[in-house]
């Protein structure tokens, strides 16, 4: 009968482990972060956690690497929807606000800020453009900027100089001219990474440069079929077709910086989050400049870039104690402090999100040595809100698919494709009005 007995034992084992619970004295904060940087993000977060724990005995930070931004969002949603505990604090895209707020999984940072003595000073130290996606239409602050970025123009200054250009392009006309001059059989003049599933971010910078963002402060409105929106996607498509300065359909996100470092692309659009890696890896002079302005004008209104990157979110379904929430907010304050923002910005190239961080070491001297860091910061004055609305994931999916079908030539008539997409989007948003 030992066979049956073993079988029973297995069943018992299942039951026992199910009942096992862990005893814990410290307040433990589960902190999820995506791998957003090619550097050793885990090592960096471990260092921050050690610093924090030293200052705050009794609080333990449990840092969990959770994949890409998409993986992070999906795993957290799956976990919470499946009845799991989820994280206490997570770094997620700044545009994930409504996905989580709609479900009641997160709480606004506003109440913690209101309880601070110098709450106003804390908030006003952040660059306004970086706050845009963390605030809802009522003006309530939900999330705190952490690893923020914008797309910028990287250029191989040596190649430009060889061809007789001693300054980067400042508008689309110059951009095309220089890109064409630098395109050879071996090299692309300009890579705009719109291939690989997420064209919306790069595309948005063109839409803004053409004069109209596809979102506003109202999360129930999306403007995807305006003349500006259509003209912008047609321009991006032409880079790979008529103008012939890059691959048809656009470059892949991950390949773009590597091709640039290898000298196989003269100019690229990419995230400031890659600044450190590119500066450290390049064997030529790396230039960085604002994304060139579009038809909307060179007085600044035609410069366009969306913000991007991740914010700190606080998770609570109402069950957490004051002690826990207190510890959670301390960790958020710590990560968004000028001291950590300065260190994080200098190590990765993400834009340190508060002004004071730029006067704090190590970023202060890093920015002095490499003026490229300051360009990303200064471009923020022209930056606008990244795409975000109710039902963000679904609507963003519709926009991405539509852009891909236009950029790869499947939908020749951009206007018709965007009208159809707008109709689907309006149908979804009608549920929220």
């Amino acid at each position, binding site marked *: 009968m030992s066979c049956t007995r073993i079988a029973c034992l*297995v069943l018992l084992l299942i039951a026992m482990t199910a009942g*096992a619970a862990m005893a814990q004295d410290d307040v433990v904060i589960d902190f999820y972060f995506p791998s957003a940087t090619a550097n050793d993000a885990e090592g960096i977060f471990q260092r921050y956690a050690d610093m924090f724990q030293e200052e705050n005995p009794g609080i333990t930070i449990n840092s969990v690497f959770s994949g*890409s931004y998409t993986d992070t969002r999906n795993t957290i949603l799956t976990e919470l929807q*499946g009845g799991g*505990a989820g994280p206490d604090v997570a770094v997620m895209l700044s545009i994930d606000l409504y996905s989580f707020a709609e479900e009641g999984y997160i709480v606004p940072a506003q109440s913690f800020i209101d309880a601070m003595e110098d709450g106003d000073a804390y908030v006003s130290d952040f660059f306004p453009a970086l706050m845009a996606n963390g605030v809802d239409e009522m003006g309530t602050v939900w999330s705190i900027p952490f690893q923020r970025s914008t797309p910028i123009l990287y250029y191989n200054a040596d190649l430009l100089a060889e061809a007789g250009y001693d300054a980067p392009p400042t508008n689309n006309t110059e951009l095309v001219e220089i890109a064409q001059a630098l395109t050879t059989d071996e090299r692309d003049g300009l890579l705009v990474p719109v291939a690989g599933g997420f064209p919306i971010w790069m595309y948005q910078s063109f839409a803004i440069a053409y004069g109209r963002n596809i979102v506003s402060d109202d999360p129930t409105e999306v403007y995807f079929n305006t003349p500006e929106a259509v003209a912008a996607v047609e321009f991006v498509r032409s880079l790979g077709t008529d103008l012939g300065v890059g691959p048809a359909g656009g470059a892949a996100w991950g390949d*773009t910086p590597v091709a640039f470092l290898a000298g196989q692309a003269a100019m690229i659009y990419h995230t400031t989050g890659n600044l450190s890696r590119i500066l450290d890896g390049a064997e030529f002079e790396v230039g960085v400049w604002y994304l060139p302005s579009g038809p909307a004008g060179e007085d600044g209104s035609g410069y366009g870039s969306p913000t991007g990157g991740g914010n700190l979110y606080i998770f609570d379904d109402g069950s957490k104690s004051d002690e826990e929430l207190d510890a959670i907010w301390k960790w958020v304050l710590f990560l968004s402090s000028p001291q950590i923002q300065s260190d994080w910005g200098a190590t990765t190239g993400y834009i340190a999100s508060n002004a004071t961080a730029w006067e704090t070491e190590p970023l202060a001297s890093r920015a002095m040595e490499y003026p490229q860091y300051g360009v990303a910061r200064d471009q923020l004055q022209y930056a606008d809100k990244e795409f975000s609305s109710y039902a963000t994931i679904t609507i963003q999916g519709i926009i991405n698919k539509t852009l891909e079908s236009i950029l790869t030539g499947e939908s020749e008539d951009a206007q018709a494709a965007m009208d159809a997409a707008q109709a689907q989007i309006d149908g979804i948003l009608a549920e929220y009005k």
Partner: protein
Amino acid sequence: MSNRSGGVLRYFASVTKTVIAIVFLIPLIFTLLVSLRPETEPVTKGNIFFGSELTFENFERAIAIAPWSLHYINSLIFVAGTLLVQLVTVTCAAYAFARMRFLGRDLLLMVILLQLMIPSGVLLVQNFRMINTLGLFDTRIALMIPYWGSAFGVLLLRQTFREVPIELEEAARIDGANLAQVIRHVYVTNAIPAYLAFALVSVSTHWNEFLWPFIITRSEAIRPLTLGLNKLIKTTDQGAFYGQLMAGTLIVIAPLVILFLLFQRQFVESFARSGIR
């Protein structure tokens, strides 16, 4: 005549064989070459096979990204823990289905076979809920428990057990053997190739598993190798540094590849004798 056509055929066969083998090996060879190339020199730059120098930089970087030895241990525990329990549950059930008569036998077998038709991979959300209900989230048990019952194993061993002559069991019974002894000495000993084949399938499946561990675990302390590799793949969000990625891929795939290289004959033969066909 027959001889000459045989000669042509053999010549044609060895050419085909060589071409296919080379094509199949190219990815592995280049994985190795790229992992040893400086990162700033993709294959499109300079010599396609070798960069300006051989470097272990990529391996150093890949090793720094994840605690590989921990992942190795976790993968080993995962596959071993899965297999050991499977062997017990599968043997018990296979014996019952092969040699016992009981009410509802065919129906119950059909229920178990449903596992083959409803891949657990498509039931991720629902299974996640089940694990949470059991309070097992982020434990080693959660990784293994959905696989502890194996319809494939039951089917394979039931078939093998049926081919064991019933007289052997009867003889053992007369000698006073109890059920456990009968199963161990009569059936298990006569089904070793089938067990081996089952073990190979089970180990290679779970060693390579990604989605389920990804969803059901959070702690580095229990995560298997494939999740270390995923971390490398996801760093390509910031730039596809293939040298580092290929180095990490090699770290992950090396053990199974080397094991197969050493034991391929036994592997193929145990498959051939297992009754999997």
